[in-house]
């Protein structure tokens, strides 16, 4: 009986992971692609650049935001390495964006799954690592602002982040 329940739980978890991957990884790819096209668009042609800008911003506020909402809900339950790799890759590829929501989501998933986030960050190249540490710093502070006392492991998380920041210098 317990074996059957165990197998069912494994199947359920695997299905969740597949759903999460299939729901949000294509969105991350599409957003990166649109942003890349925009960055490469002809700087001398304002009309063309604005057209590309509209495409990337519309996608960012609609589809990418929906994917971020799924990520923040699902990643805490099922910390999928592939999804995290893709998310970090999007953050790096879209450094040109002033949109704050992705940083906030990184901060939120750091609160529930700190070790997987730290492991990923430390594996990045120096330049990317420094950028992601700054993004995580902003996201974590945003996610915990005026709520520090409500987060039981706040001090531990903050200390780990401080160590990362010291290490980047």
């Amino acid at each position: 009986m317990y074996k059957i329940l165990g197998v069912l739980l494994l199947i359920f978890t695997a299905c969740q992971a597949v759903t999460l991957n299939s729901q949000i990884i294509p969105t991350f790819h599409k957003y990166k692609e649109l942003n890349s096209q925009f960055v490469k668009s002809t700087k001398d042609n304002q009309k063309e650049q604005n057209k590309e800008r509209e495409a990337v911003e519309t996608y960012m506020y609609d589809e990418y935001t929906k994917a971020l909402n799924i990520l923040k809900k699902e990643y805490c339950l099922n910390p999928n390495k592939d999804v995290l790799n893709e998310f970090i890759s999007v953050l790096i590829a879209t450094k040109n964006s002033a949109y704050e929501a992705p940083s906030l989501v990184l901060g939120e998933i750091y609160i529930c799954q700190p070790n997987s986030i730290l492991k990923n960050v430390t594996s990045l190249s120096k330049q990317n690592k420094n950028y992601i540490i700054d993004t995580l710093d902003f996201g974590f502070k945003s996610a915990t602002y005026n709520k520090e006392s409500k987060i039981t492991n706040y001090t531990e998380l903050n200390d780990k982040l401080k160590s990362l920041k010291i290490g980047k210098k």
Partner: protein
Amino acid sequence: MATMTFSKSTNVLSWPGFGSWSAVSGGWGDSLPSGIYTVERRKVTEYTKSIGIGFQDKTGKGYFVPLTPQFSSIRTGIGIHPDGNLPGTKGCIGIRDNPETFYRAIASTSPAANITLQAID
């Protein structure tokens, strides 16, 4: 001449005839590039609780006013919003004091209004 001005040195957003607001750009990323922007009047969101926490004022409601540079820039996602939650922005203009009055001002204009903003150093 632009309709409104944001000074990055004095951190003031001025809109003659409507008022001026203490505001910030950057702190968690580069401030918005200097130059003239189109204020996307038709794309202004509602003043609502259903908006990201960083865009909400003390009442828990917020808004986003998108800006499009009229010059070549690769920055995306720039706009004006209340400087909610953690102080500072990733490049947007975050209004610190009385952000609701700015919303009322922009909402009082025609959706077809041609509004521009000049960001100066």
